[in-house]
Structure formats: structure tokens, C-alpha cells
């Protein structure tokens, strides 16, 4: 099972996990990314490249399915305006084994950060600024290229 979605609306992690649990695989792993509340950001706006975004996420999902024995995976990324504490991104995987579920989950979120065309803009006290890419994200994504 593969479900890749780019959407403005929210999602329910519990309901999404339940969709993987019913596959009966034995192990389900997930990652949820939230809008941080520690640096005065009131709103985060997610811009993306319609068309390419969906293709890039779908390619990542296919790469994970080819590399690990997964019963299913769900990948959801939101776009538009998001308030502090709101969910931005959700990755979940189901497998017969915990290592495959955990590794595939980490692969998907690490590679999503460098391969999918999203851009974050922060609103801090009415001043909007683009979020800079981080070198640590490139390093995290690179560790999956050699293996």
C-alpha cells in the first residue's frame, strides 16, 4: 500500500497509523513534523512546485518500497499557511520487521528534506523571511545514498 499526498488541510496521525496497522505486518513506524514554537514564529507558509512535488514524493516512496520489505507507507506533506504547533509532515511505514520500518521512515523524511521542492517562509512579528537550507539536512540525506 502506498499513499502519497500533498494537501492544505490537516490530518489525523492516529487514523493514518490505523490504516497501516490493519495491514497486519507486525511493525509500524512513523515521524510527525510540527511547526516549531521556540523562536517567535507565528505562521509558517509552505510554497511548493505543483506537479514536481507529487512526482518527487512518489519517486521517494517507490525508492523506499524497492529498498525495504514494506507492507505499506504513507507520506503526507501540507502546503499553505500553518500556525505554531500544527502538523506539517507525516511519514509512516509498515513492515514485518522493526528495522525495515524504522529505516524506511528515516530515509523518507531525510530525503524528502533535500529532494522535494518545498520552501518555508516564516512570519516573525509581521516580518516574513525565507527559511535557509541547512547543511545538516544535506548530510542526513547523503547517508542514504551510499548504502
Amino acid at each position: 500500500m502506498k499513499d502519497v499526498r500533498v494537501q492544505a488541510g490537516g490530518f489525523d496521525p492516529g487514523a493514518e497509523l490505523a490504516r497501516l496497522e490493519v495491514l497486519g505486518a507486525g511493525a509500524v513506524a512513523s515521524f510527525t513534523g510540527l511547526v516549531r514554537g521556540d523562536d517567535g514564529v507565528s505562521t509558517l507558509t509552505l510554497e511548493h512546485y505543483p506537479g514536481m512535488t507529487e512526482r518527487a514524493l512518489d519517486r521517494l516512496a517507490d525508492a523506499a518500497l524497492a529498498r525495504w520489505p514494506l507492507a505499506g507507507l504513507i507520506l503526507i506533506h501540507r502546503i499553505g499557511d500553518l500556525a505554531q504547533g500544527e502538523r506539517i509532515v507525516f511519514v509512516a511505514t509498515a513492515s514485518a520487521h522493526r528495522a525495515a520500518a524504522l529505516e524506511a521512515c528515516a530515509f523518507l523524511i531525510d530525503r524528502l528534506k533535500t529532494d522535494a521542492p518545498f520552501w518555508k517562509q516564516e512570519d516573525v512579528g509581521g516580518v516574513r523571511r525565507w527559511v535557509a537550507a541547512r547543511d545538516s539536512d544535506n548530510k542526513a540525506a547523503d547517508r542514504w545514498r551510499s548504502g
Partner: protein
Amino acid sequence: MAVRILYFARVREQIGLADEVVDVPQDVRTLGDLADFLARRSPGHAEAFAHRQHVRAALDQQMADFEASLGDAREVAFFPPVTGG
């Protein structure tokens, strides 16, 4: 050759356009050549392409290096390093 060029995020703001159709001359062979060519279109274009290390590109919706050949690409996009997730 008419190519549709898309701009996103900071690059879109600097150029002041989300997209444009550009007639690309034959001697523009790579994405880097195209960036040089586009940089001459306006002060905003020049600003957007001034620091090439802060610009990424996609050819027909696939990430590509500036050395990549344009080939028969119909859609090219320029944007800052991505920050999703």
C-alpha cells in the same frame, strides 16, 4: 526554442514573475548557460542569479545540475535550496 521557465520562493520574488515563456537561442546549451542568459533580462533576474550557489534548478520537473544539457526540455524551474519537511 520556446521554453517555459518557472520561479519559486525567493527567486520568484526577486524576479517578480512566477513564470515566463522565453525563446532560448541555440547557443544556450546547459542550465548554467540558461541562467546566464536569463540574468540579462532585468535587474531582478540579475539579482536572482548573482549567487549561483544559492540557486537550484529542475529540468522537466527533475532536479538537475547547472552542467546539465537543456536537450528538449519544455519546462525549466529555478529556485532556492529546498526547505520542506
